[in-house]
């Protein structure tokens, strides 16, 4: 009985997902058009794609976002990695030293 209920829920949720994607997905390569303040029909993605090569001088827009527009974020990621390495080294040395 519970298998039938589970199968029914899977079918309903899957059908809902397929319907939503078919109905509301944007065509490939287009940007969502919206109005924020005075920026009409111009999203952040469009601005970055247009301005990034000129303002950062980098041909790879992903790198220009990662290290220039969101440099603090990436520095934080590097800090997280550093903390993880310190934690692993401390933990495993402590376990080894107790034997």
């Amino acid at each position: 009985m519970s298998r039938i209920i589970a199968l029914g829920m899977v079918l309903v949720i899957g059908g809902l997902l397929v319907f939503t994607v078919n109905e509301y997905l944007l065509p490939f390569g287009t940007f969502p058009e919206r109005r924020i303040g005075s920026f009409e029909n111009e999203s952040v993605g469009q601005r970055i794609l247009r301005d990034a090569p000129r303002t950062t001088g980098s041909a790879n827009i992903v790198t220009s976002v990662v290290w220039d527009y969101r440099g603090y974020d990436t520095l934080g990621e590097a800090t997280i990695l550093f903390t993880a390495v310190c934690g692993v080294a401390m933990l495993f040395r402590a376990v080894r030293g107790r034997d």
Partner: protein
Amino acid sequence: MAGMTVIVRTISRLLFPFIFLFGIYIIVHGHLTPGGGFQGGVILAASVIMLLLAYGIERAQAKVNVLQAELSESLGGLILVGLGLLGIVLGITFLKNVLPLGELGHIFSAGNLPVLNIGVSIKVAAGFLTIFYAMLRLQGGKE
């Protein structure tokens, strides 16, 4: 760790310089082609870990020993923070792109983005090696 058969040893010994060179290519062209510091650093670490798996821990630690890995991880972090502080020293803001931008698409372009990529690649490669050595020290037992 004893290492693996002669087939695996030969193939990994022959492949090691090419994988290392590919990692350096990914890092240095991080501002031109897909890739960057994180990805290239992982490739560098994977090349040394491949030697470690094939030959055992002595061969890998002859390339990079534990102290070198830990020191170069700190060096990578210092490069990142130092470049960030360079912006403050020049009187602008932290992590501002202060070096000259150069010409779009050339290898010496994009200000301090390539230098940041190199710093984070050193940091990621040395960090992964440090984690691997620490875990191996626990698992290896008698060494």
